């Protein structure tokens, strides 16, 4: 048994036999020619043939993965027809008097080098497109058929890399999973695997490809990116179990898609998803969540060396709102403290960051950060149904300051003639005992509460949640925490606000009935838990 790991791009497990595809190095010889006109004519003919092939691939992709993903092949056709690309090939033939294959190969190297040297991962990946069209052109020139893959039974494809056209032309009824040694999550293989719902792991490394042999029994875990060659029985069983769970989830999806989340006795509750970045929207939609109950905005601040600009933030917020269409999206403002090292925020080291200058405290002390984020949020509000919530609230005056900051952001936008929506819901996190205790005072100020159970538990029980030694003292079902939630729910409803739970406790199905009885209006959990939770709700009967 040997273990390797890469990056999982589609969360599902496959167990089966490996089929190893090593690309034969299509070495191209440099041959001196006497008749450049003849070579130019050969290029022209090969281009026509390659374009005809791409039209066929485009049609196949259109059927299998839809127009959005198929468009890459239309772009391939345009690249093939690009003036600079064609000119480069023709110039090399004319000035160096060399064969067409060689001219294409040199041009391919030059253009793919240009993309590889760009400082943007997405654009670097485009060098694969240049190589893909060039290899196709060379194959057409030399009369070789592009190598299609044949297999008699279902296999796991293991390759150094797969070009977009190879991925589409594969006979998918024979493919259990893809594993590539290289590639990135921006590669078309990754994008196509996701839209085809095929387990895939990329970037598994050269060592994996050297270790795996044709016909080896292989486990591919698209959730974690783990790869196991020749697994022992125990490991096999473990993964077959996960596979069963995935299938259960899929079956649930079939049953629950589009159905309301309502108990047997008719009490309705919303089930939303938590996300930490725009790359998780696919999972939210795939699990049929009713909205996004917590969008952590921290990733925008952690990803770069500088604070995200208003435009950068707007792009991310707009994307999530547009993709969720008319479903609610609740974005939490920056929730960061000294426990995270973010150089551009210049946070001083603290002895006790959990009780330190963090979250809303930091934002209120640094209005330039706060107002920039609020402006971006309000600008994005015209693209969907937005809610904004503020973390780590402990007092009435903090909420007053947050609301004033929102007014300031709106006033600025209005003065600049920039559109925003007036229907943005404003809410606060209930994650300190203080906020729960004065929830009767806070509720009239806002549209909603969202209970962050992880912090609420840590602050109520005085237990550091990072400290593994405290495990026996952290009772996540502690009555004190549950009473604080219930108290907040009663106060919210008394003042016309709604209340949700977005911490880990929301996914704990042993508490679902209790939360329903308290009158909780919304539960927000990470995407993989959405369907299981919805199933639990629909089986609950509060009248018995």
């Amino acid at each position: 048994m040997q273990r390797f790991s890469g990056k999982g791009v589609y969360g599902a497990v496959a167990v089966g036999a490996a089929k190893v595809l090593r690309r034969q190095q299509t070495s191209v010889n440099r041959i001196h020619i006497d008749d450049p006109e003849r070579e130019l004519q050969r290029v022209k003919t090969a281009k026509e043939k390659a374009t005809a092939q791409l039209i066929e691939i485009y049609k196949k992709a259109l059927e299998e993965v839809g127009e959005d993903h198929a468009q890459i092949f239309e772009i391939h056709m345009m690249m093939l027809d690009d003036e600079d690309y064609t000119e480069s090939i023709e110039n090399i033939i004319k000035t160096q008097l060399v064969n067409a294959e060689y001219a294409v190969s040199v041009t391919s190297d030059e253009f793919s080098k240009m993309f590889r040297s760009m400082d943007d991962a997405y654009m670097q990946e485009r060098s694969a497109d240049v190589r893909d069209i060039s290899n196709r052109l060379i194959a057409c020139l030399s009369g070789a058929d592009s190598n299609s893959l044949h297999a008699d039974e279902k296999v796991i494809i293991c390759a150094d890399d797969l070009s977009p056209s190879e991925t589409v032309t594969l006979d998918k009824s024979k493919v259990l999973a893809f594993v590539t040694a290289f590639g990135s999550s921006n590669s078309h293989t990754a994008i196509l695997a996701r839209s085809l719902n095929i387990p895939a792991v990329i970037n598994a490394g050269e060592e994996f490809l050297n270790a795996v042999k044709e016909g080896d029994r292989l486990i591919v875990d698209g959730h974690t990116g783990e790869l196991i060659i020749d697994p022992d029985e125990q490991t096999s069983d473990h993964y077959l179990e996960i596979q069963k769970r995935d299938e259960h989830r899929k079956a649930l999806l079939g049953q629950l898609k589009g159905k309301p989340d309502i108990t047997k006795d008719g009490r309705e509750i919303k089930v939303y998803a938590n996300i930490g970045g725009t790359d998780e929207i696919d999972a939210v939609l795939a699990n049929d969540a009713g909205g996004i109950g917590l969008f952590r905005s921290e990733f925008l601040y952690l990803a770069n060396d500088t604070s995200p600009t208003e435009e950068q933030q707007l792009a991310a917020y707009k994307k999530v709102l547009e993709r969720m269409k008319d479903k609610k999206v609740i974005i939490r403002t920056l929730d960061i403290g000294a426990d995270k090292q973010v150089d551009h925020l210049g946070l001083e080291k603290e002895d006790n960051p959990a009780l330190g200058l963090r979250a809303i405290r930091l934002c209120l002390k640094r209005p330039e950060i706060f107002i920039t984020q609020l402006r971006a949020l309000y600008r994005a509000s015209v693209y969907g149904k937005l809610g904004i919530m503020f973390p780590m609230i402990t007092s009435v005056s903090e909420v007053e300051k947050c609301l004033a900051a929102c007014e300031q952001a709106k006033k600025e936008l209005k003065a600049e003639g920039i559109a925003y929506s007036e229907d943005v819901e404003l809410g606060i996190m209930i994650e300190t005992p203080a906020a729960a205790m004065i929830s009767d005072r806070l509720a009239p100020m806002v549209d909603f509460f969202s209970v962050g159970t992880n912090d609420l538990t840590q602050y109520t029980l005085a237990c550091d949640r990072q400290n593994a030694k405290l495990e026996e003292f952290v009772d996540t079902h502690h009555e004190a925490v549950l009473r604080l939630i219930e108290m907040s729910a009663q106060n919210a409803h008394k003042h016309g606000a709604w209340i949700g739970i977005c911490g880990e406790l929301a996914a704990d199905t042993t508490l679902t009935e209790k939360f329903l009885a308290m009158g909780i209006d919304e539960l927000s959990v990470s995407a993989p838990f959405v369907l299981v939770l919805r199933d639990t709700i629909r089986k609950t009967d509060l009248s018995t």
Partner: protein
Amino acid sequence: MKSFSYTIKDELGIHARPAGNLAKLAKSWKGTSITIEKDGKSVDAAKLIMLMGLGVKCGDTVNVTVEGPDEDNAVKEVEGFMQANL
């Protein structure tokens, strides 16, 4: 000659898909030259590979210049395209 500047709002910048559509649009205006300039480097918008090679990202400001017999209509279409897609 007509020109305008535009700040990219799409999260991925001028990536493959909009670049392909922009190049297609630029090509459709035969006899009119449409150039995109970023940081002093300018490319013909009809040339897809160079357009992608410009590496225009979210937040970047580009200058678009349109020159030709039908520049008034062309500039309107290009500006509309960018506002809707980028």
